[in-house]
């Protein structure tokens, strides 16, 4: 299957500064209806990557392909198959939503009558049906975000690139936006690239995640697999003499790191159940104050990837910086 995004040693310079430093990866599969999350701290190069994919920036070296098409050389073909929701304000204030969407639809190649029908259809779909004749300048922030989403999907693109779609939304509007994104991929088979700094949004919607830092990919993960792998991650707090606890754990093939004051981080191998841990604790005459099956959240993956927290026991992957330098994912 053709990957949705394929980067090969992509380098992008803005002025004299290199923003993307030779990144390589293959993300998603065309027509699979999967969502790819693009994460990274501010200045990591997420927006530059999106803008390069859209052909707004030229690569100084390497190549970027979307749905098998070169983003620079086949820019026109790429753009007719992609929908883009920009992060910033982009709606023409004194124009009605229907009119803007008609124009955008026709520019994407929809016949005039179809564009008009689709404009109404999409606006009802995103919940702006009643407000579709109002000037866009009178819309609330949430409505503007929905209008931006509507213009991105009016022509039924194969790939929708959403740049911070939930920015500034209240919880209800955020939930609605994420529901629409989920529908786009699950019901309509669209591939989605979601660029966000809100990890919960990415966690709720995405199947794959790429974490960028300083213009390099520091982590690329299948979120579902990541979640499964981290179910064996336990945080334990005990009172009593725990000096032999580490040895007792290793006898059973588990690894534990003492964080002091009776706090332990333990990684259980797949064959060890949590009951075994209870038995070890009993044998060592320790009192359990707290035991958490810590489901490693995306936040932890993110912080680990960008190097804000120490790597924990049992984490055998190469350090993130090495991953980035090698360009290996």
């Amino acid at each position, binding site marked *: 299957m053709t990957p949705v995004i394929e980067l090969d040693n992509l380098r992008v310079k803005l*002025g004299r500064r290199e923003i993307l430093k030779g990144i390589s990866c293959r993300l998603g599969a065309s027509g699979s209806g999967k969502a790819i999350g693009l994460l990274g701290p501010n200045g990591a190069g997420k927006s530059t990557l999106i803008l390069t994919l859209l052909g707004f*920036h030229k690569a100084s070296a390497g190549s970027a392909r979307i749905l098998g098409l070169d983003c620079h050389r086949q820019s026109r073909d790429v753009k007719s198959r992609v929908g883009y929701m*920009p992060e910033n304000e982009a*709606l023409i204030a004194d124009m009605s939503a229907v009119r803007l969407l008609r124009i955008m639809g026709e520019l994407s*190649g929809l016949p005039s009558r179809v564009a008009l*029908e689709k404009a109404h259809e999409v606006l009802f779909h995103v919940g702006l*049906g009643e407000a579709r004749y109002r000037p866009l300048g009178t819309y609330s922030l949430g409505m503007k975000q929905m209008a931006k989403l509507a213009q991105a999907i009016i022509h039924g693109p194969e790939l929708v690139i959403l740049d911070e779609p939930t920015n500034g939304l209240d919880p209800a509007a955020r939930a609605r936006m994420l529901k629409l994104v989920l529908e786009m991929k699950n019901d*309509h088979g669209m591939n989605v690239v979601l660029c966000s700094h809100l990890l919960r949004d990415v966690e709720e919607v995405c199947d794959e995640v790429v974490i960028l830092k300083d213009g390099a990919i520091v982590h690329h993960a299948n979120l579902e697999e990541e979640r499964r792998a981290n179910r064996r991650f336990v945080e334990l707090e005990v009172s009593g003499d725990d000096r032999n606890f580490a040895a007792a754990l290793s006898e059973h093939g588990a690894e534990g790191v003492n964080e002091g004051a009776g706090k332990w981080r333990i990684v259980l191998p797949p064959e060890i159940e949590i009951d075994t841990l209870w038995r070890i604790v009993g044998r060592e005459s320790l009192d359990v104050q707290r035991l958490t099956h810590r489901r490693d959240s995306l936040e932890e993956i993110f912080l680990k990837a960008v190097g804000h927290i120490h790597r924990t026991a049992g984490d055998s992957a190469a350090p993130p910086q090495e991953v980035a330098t090698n360009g290996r994912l």
Partner: protein
Amino acid sequence: MAVYKRGYQRYQGPLTSPASRLLVLPRFAWERLMQQRLISILFIVALFWPTGCALFIYLSHHLDLLQGMGGAATAKIFDINAEFFFIFMNAQATFAIILAAFAGPSLIAPDLSNGALPLYFSRPMSRSTYVLSRMLVLVGVLSPVTWIPGGLLFLMQSGMAGWDWFSANWHIGAAIVAGFFFWILLVSLVAMASSAYVRWRMIAGALVLGIFFILAGASELANAVLRVEWASAFNPTRATLQLWRALLGLEPFPGPDEYECFAALVLMIGLLAAILNRKLRPVEVVS
């Protein structure tokens, strides 16, 4: 089924051709411009002079209707020649500037001030296509007050004067069309570059008028202060008129000749294109 009842479905039908999409922006822009009362009024006013010229041509062929006036003198006044069409073009050029000043800035300034360019450029539309589309709007607005009435007047005169007049003066018709197209190109670029540069409609409109009228004054001032004549080449109106005189086969104005004026105009067009190229970007990169 009512549109609010049916859910969203991805469009998977045939797409229009890229060439036909070139007219999407002009179509919507013309519709919007024609809804503005001021533009409609300007449009109508700009057609007064061509109507007067048409009447003049008609009378020139029906001098018997003016029996009270002296015969030979009247015939001289009503002589339809290149000078007549030059005066017509001169007047219509002014109307074209005024129309462009009011209609032009509303084309690009809203896109820039609202940050809408990424929406256009994330679609199969290049920057040059965008500029061409926007220029077509002005070509559509300015054509009915420039080369179309000019061409009709020429055809009217040809029809009334006969084949001999046409075969001796066909270059006038070509000069009207070519001259006005060059003028439309210049005026459109000035209007678009102004709105791209200042982004505020009112100021951009004033800037369009300013470029034509202030440059005229500035070039005359430069001529007077430096005791030269070449500064007239940098008055876009004067330079274009000189070019038109050459195309119509008339005696040139004193000062820079048609080649020098043409070179100055090409330089101006290049400068305006560079401004548009600099300003019309989907994202601004701060180095």
